[in-house]
């Protein structure tokens, strides 16, 4: 067995190479290509298709928040970015990334892992937005929560893409041994998806709460400020998304749902802090399920 440090450096090197031109997800690539190749694409369709792909969303935010623009505050809304950059620029950006994404569709193992990953991202985004609304965040700021949920696990993409077989094994081992995925990642790659997320945040020059979410959603910042509250909502959304198996397949009876979510200490703290009854989350699950189903229909993922 080689030196673990050398091994980690080798992984980092492969990931850094991959990050130079990160493709969009194979799951969304076909839909992105069809929307962007149509001369009559509406801003609404473009917004929707970009907002369903973490890499594309990240690329658009990266661009609008790049040093090329003289912005007073970072832009976290896709709607705002589309108006400022224009349909053509967004289409070009999406096309170049989606073409790369479409190529990966040929590898079925990777595609399956990506489809599961994609559903989890969307589900976490939907949950994060719902929790924000439920806990008093004004509607216009809730989109940022969706984006944060969508992007929270972006650090997993290079792992799934560059080492699909190893990653599949990690998922199986973590499930069998009841380990968290980020612990299992650390054991195999010498780093977890938060740390890889940090590499992406640095490369994309992302700032603010979204970047915090990417880097610390499993290790909440020990502060009591807005950023903490933001990351906490997305972290709770992440757990709820996993518990409900991405909010779609598992139709919990209410008592089992409540019993399950109350086993998690972060959820208990969150409910207490915001004075929410567990049944509220059950209602949110119903709404989230519909939104996730709609997203799947939009990109035409076959329901399995």
């Amino acid at each position, binding site marked *: 067995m080689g030196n673990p440090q050398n091994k980690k450096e080798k992984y980092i090197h492969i990931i850094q190479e991959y990050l130079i031109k990160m493709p969009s997800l194979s799951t969304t690539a076909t839909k992105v290509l069809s929307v962007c190749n149509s001369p009559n694409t509406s*801003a609404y369709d473009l917004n929707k298709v970009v907002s369903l792909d973490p890499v594309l969303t990240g690329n658009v935010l990266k661009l609008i928040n790049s*040093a*090329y623009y003289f912005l007073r505050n970072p832009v976290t809304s896709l*709607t705002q970015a589309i108006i*400022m950059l*224009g349909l053509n*620029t967004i289409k070009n950006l999406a096309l170049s990334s989606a073409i790369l994404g479409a190529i990966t569709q040929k590898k079925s193992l990777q595609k399956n892992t990506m489809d599961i990953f994609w559903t989890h991202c969307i589900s976490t985004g939907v949950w994060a937005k719902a929790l924000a609304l439920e806990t008093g965040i004004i509607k*216009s700021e809730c*989109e940022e929560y969706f984006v944060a949920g969508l992007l929270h696990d972006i650090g997993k993409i290079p792992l799934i893409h560059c080492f699909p077989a190893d990653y599949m094994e990690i998922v199986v081992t973590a499930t069998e041994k009841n380990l968290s995925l980020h612990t299992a990642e650390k054991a195999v790659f010498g780093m977890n998806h938060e740390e890889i997320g940090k590499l992406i945040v640095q490369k994309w020059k992302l700032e603010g709460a979204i970047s915090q979410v990417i880097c610390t959603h499993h290790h909440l910042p020990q502060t009591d400020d807005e950023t903490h509250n933001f990351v906490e909502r997305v972290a709770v959304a992440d757990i709820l998304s996993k518990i409900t198996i991405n909010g779609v397949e598992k139709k919990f009876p209410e008592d089992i749902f409540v019993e399950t979510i109350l086993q998690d200490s972060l959820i208990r703290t969150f409910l207490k802090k915001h004075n929410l009854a567990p049944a509220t989350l059950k209602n949110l699950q119903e709404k989230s399920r519909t939104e996730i189903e709609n997203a799947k229909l939009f990109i035409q993922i076959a329901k399995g």
Partner: protein
Amino acid sequence: MKIKFWGVRGSIPCPGPDTVKYGGNTPCIELRFNDINRQIIIDAGSGIRELGNHMMANDLSKGPIDTELFLTHTHSDHIMGFPFFSPIYLKDTKLKIYGPVSFEDDTLKDIIGNQMSYRYFPVRQIELASKIDYIELKEGPVTTKDDNISVTAKFLNHPVLCLGYRFKYQDKVVCTLYDSEPFQNIFTIDPQDPSYDETMAHEGEETAQMQNELLENFLKNADLVIRDAQYTQEEYQASKKGWGHTSMEYAIESSKKAGVKQLALFHHEPLYSDKKLDELTEKFYSHNTTGNMEIFFAKEGMEIIL
């Protein structure tokens, strides 16, 4: 400061008997600052060919050419004259080319220089004798040769990255605002439309309004604004939305609001004849439309002293 228009036409050169008065060359503007011996050229449309010939005939005898070219964007009508700009073939010429970055991986040097490859042109960029530096710009203040002239760049709404410039020398300000379309809310605001989304509609309205206000601020109290006004409002509404250009009516109204003193309507539609542009001058040239702001349709060869 002296401003001279060497090309005023949009899209494609259109020489001929119908465009003699306003000119058929695509954009090229020259700013001369004789007291500090500086020259700034804005865009390398087909009009830059004549400017280059003029420089060879009049400037070269005073010493080697040392000049700066600001590109607003890289659409062909704004760069097509570059290979015909004679000073680039002289070994003592120094040229700085400023322009917007590309979102693709190509550099400004490649985008401009690729016109000079054998498939398009008999001389390659690498064979040019002059010393050319390319400077890729961001939004905000631009560092140039010296501090005498301050330059600020602002991204505009056009289908490719495009910069407007604000040049200030002593107490005089000249702005260029082309090619540019007013920011629009491109999300539907009709609740009956199947693609209506309340948040997008609201945020779209707010963003477009805010960006247009920022553009007006950029022009604030300028002595001269040279502005894209390719279409009439009627033409714009009928079929030109999203093409990246402004209507004359909007250009006049928003420049007036910004307190602009002189407005040059620019980037003329190639289909417009001299007669048509005369008629439009007649139409817009009234105190009711323009208030205290002076407006005119830019003509090739026209000079303005500020």
